[in-house]
């Protein structure tokens, strides 16, 4: 039987077989390799985000102006605070996870149970926070007008705060003049029965224009970032002209097609990247729950090793690791 090589002459060497050169179990190694490939997926997304941002570098939305909300503190502009809280929650749940792994090494079932439970709670808080963040983002706050070219025009006025002139955003609800309109939502009962239309925008462009013309103080700003790193505010005449000639659609909030904060790509990437990460956190929580019950049932106690907690822990830390990067590239940079 010489058709296969049975002896390679490497017996007894590091990679000759029978050894564990990496001193890691199969499961742990495969978890590491999965993490590498998953890290590449996430970097693909973030690099694509970078591509789109470089493409629109002069008009990309400023994250500090978009994510300003904190639950229970309605109407206050507090950029960063809530995401910082979310980041801390996730790092904290990483800590409880690594404490659970450590307790597993000491075969301490009670401690593993406790720390895993805390990890699950942390993960749940994070997913909940992200859902809230999405809801706030989708709902929007000031509203805007989209031009024929797909650019976003926002509204505001100059106010003096602490002796400095500042551009303060104004919601379209505050100045739009509601007029009677003939335009009705196209339902299934009219025309082609199978064709229906999404809910109409809150106002027509004309109503916004009327409101803008009636309020002398309101100005329009476009998305172009000037030398001071702020969006360009147009003059009064230019504001009226832009809305009259170029305004096409009133936008409130964000979805995959339109986005009141700026280029639609920003919302697309926000939904896609934080959504994909949120899905990872969610599956992490589910896996943690399964392992949690296994710990309670004593599966790993009988097995004589809590390595499963360690492997799931690796995945959980990876989710935290990805969030560190998402946090930087979506909210900070």
């Amino acid at each position: 039987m010489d058709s296969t090589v049975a002896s390679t002459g490497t017996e007894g060497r590091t990679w000759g077989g029978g050894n564990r050169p990496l001193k890691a179990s199969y499961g742990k190694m495969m978890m590491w390799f999965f993490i590498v490939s998953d890290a590449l997926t996430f970097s693909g997304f973030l690099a694509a985000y970078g591509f789109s941002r470089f493409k629109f570098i002069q008009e990309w939305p400023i994250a500090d102006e978009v994510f300003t909300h904190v639950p229970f503190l309605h109407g206050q502009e507090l950029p960063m605070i809530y995401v910082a809280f979310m980041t801390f929650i996730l790092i904290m749940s990483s800590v409880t996870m690594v404490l659970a792994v450590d307790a597993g090494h000491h075969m301490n079932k009670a401690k593993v149970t406790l720390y895993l439970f805390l990890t699950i709670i942390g993960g749940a808080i994070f997913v909940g926070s992200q859902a809230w963040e999405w809801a706030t983002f989708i709902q929007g706050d000031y509203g805007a007008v989209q031009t024929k070219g797909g650019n976003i025009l926002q509204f505001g006025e100059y106010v003096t705060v602490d002796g400095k002139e500042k551009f303060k955003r104004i919601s379209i609800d505050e100045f739009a003049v509601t007029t009677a309109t003939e335009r009705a939502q196209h339902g299934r009962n009219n025309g082609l029965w199978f064709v229906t239309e999404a809910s109409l925008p809150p106002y027509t462009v004309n109503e916004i224009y009327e409101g803008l013309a009636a309020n002398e103080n309101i100005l329009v700003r476009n998305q172009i970032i000037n030398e001071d790193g702020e969006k360009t505010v147009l003059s009064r005449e230019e504001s009226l002209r832009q809305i009259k000639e170029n305004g096409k659609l009133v936008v409130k909030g964000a979805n995959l097609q339109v986005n009141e904060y700026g280029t639609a790509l920003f919302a697309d990437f926000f939904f896609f990247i934080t959504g994909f990460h949120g899905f990872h956190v969610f599956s992490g929580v589910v896996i943690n729950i399964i392992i949690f019950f296994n710990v309670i049932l004593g599966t790993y106690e009988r097995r004589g090793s809590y390595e499963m907690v360690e492997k799931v822990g690796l995945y959980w830390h990876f989710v935290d690791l990805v969030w560190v990067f998402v946090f930087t590239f979506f909210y900070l940079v």
Partner: protein
Amino acid sequence: MAHEHKLEIFRGLWKFKSNTQKIWGVLAFLTFVTAIEVILGIYKPDFLMHTWISPIEGGFFATLVNIILSPFVYMKPLNLIFIILTIIKAYYITWDFMHMRDETKALRRMVVWTAVFLICYLIFILLQEGGYVYDVYFTQDPLIKRDF
């Protein structure tokens, strides 16, 4: 399973008595770094908002120098600080929470070098291309009109 943990971080500057203590120490450090990021992100100090070196004009070698120094020439110092702090955080999460510090050198390199190389490549290609597309759109006489 007898596990040996390496119980020092910052190249031995900060030593711990047990693994649990090390975990809390790393948490303190990560929280500190995040706090710095958040504070910088909220206040955005003026001197960090503009690049310190402007692109060097001239021929081929000037371009070469610009490429080598690109993080300083083309990036706001604030953003550079954010990215460096992020990588520091990523290092401590991987090394101490995921126990990469305790794995063999071979496993560590398999995972880290592969990922780092491919990610650098990906980022280079896509950002280069994005910058190029921007240049095409925003020349003096662009073929595509976008502002209407």
